[in-house]
């Protein structure tokens, strides 16, 4: 098997060598698995009350549409998205002293939202496909799936799909796969930012994204062929 070491490697690509993508300062995104203390271990910054409101309004609120869109794509339900966004912003305000002014507020907020989703909403999510990520990992983690799987599909076959069809295909993916696609392709985060939002290594971001796209292409192919955009008609 031919390999491309740089692609396979888990070594993060250094910003110096990277082409394109924003290269902002390394923002501080505190570690935590707990819903109650989403921002534990964070150094406290002594913001005055006035500064807190200023940060909240100037750095957090501008991302509210992106946050809502993310919440809606995760929960696939307007009421749940409402609750999730509200909880996230209230949490963000409560723990505002662990946010360093001027750093990547969007990634910081997305990380809190994603943790809230996992802790509070995932269990009661109305998502029909109750696929545990562990199962999916097992299914798609085999060497075969990882290295040799490519979906047989032509660009012209999917180019006529409309937004709703693409959204339905995306929604049918298990949530962890859906998440990396939303973060990368819809919200435009870099792999490095995604690694911080999701608390996973960059190598895992890459491989999960790769698998997510294979799954998505399979769904799109099913859609395209059911709509009659068959390979034969492309000649």
């Amino acid at each position, binding site marked *: 098997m031919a390999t491309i070491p*740089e692609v396979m490697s888990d070594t993060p690509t250094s910003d110096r060598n*990277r082409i394109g993508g924003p290269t902002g300062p390394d923002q501080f995104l505190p570690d935590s698995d707990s819903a109650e203390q989403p921002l534990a271990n964070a150094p406290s910054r002594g913001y005055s009350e006035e500064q807190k409101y200023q940060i909240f309004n100037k750095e957090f609120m501008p991302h*509210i549409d992106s946050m809502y869109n993310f919440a809606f794509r995760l929960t696939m339900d307007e009421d749940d998205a409402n609750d999730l*966004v509200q909880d996230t*912003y209230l949490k963000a305000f409560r723990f505002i002293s662990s946010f360093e002014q001027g750093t990547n507020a969007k990634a910081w907020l997305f990380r809190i939202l994603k943790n809230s989703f996992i802790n509070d909403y995932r269990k009661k999510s109305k998502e029909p496909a109750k696929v545990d990520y562990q199962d999916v990992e097992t299914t798609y983690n085999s060497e075969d799936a990882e290295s040799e799987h490519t979906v047989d599909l032509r660009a012209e076959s999917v180019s006529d799909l409309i937004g709703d069809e693409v959204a339905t295909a995306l929604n049918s993916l298990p949530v962890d796969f859906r998440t990396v696609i939303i973060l990368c392709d819809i919200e435009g985060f870099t792999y490095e930012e995604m690694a911080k939002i999701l608390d996973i290594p960059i190598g895992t971001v890459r491989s999960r994204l790769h698998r997510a*796209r294979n799954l998505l292409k399979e769904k799109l192919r099913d859609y395209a062929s059911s709509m009659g955009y068959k390979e034969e008609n492309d000649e």
Partner: protein
Amino acid sequence: MQTPLPSSSGTKPEMKEHCSHRADCLKLIQLILDGEATEQQLARAKANLESCKPCIQMYQLEKEVKELLTKRIEKRCCPEQLVATIKSRILSFS
């Protein structure tokens, strides 16, 4: 330096009909489209994308799928009521 540009000379490299590293090429293509490839990776992929038919098709498909996601899926905006609720709840905090 001695190698002439493929298109400008009569010695066009033969287009490969089969790719023996499809899976790895696909990973590389995704890195490029995501803006995460290094100069080295870009250079290696560039050669492929000029001479390997399956790679060209994979590139087109990946680009198309990314554009479908970026441009065709409707972006939901936060309801104004929710913005108002959040702002008023924040004010009653301290």
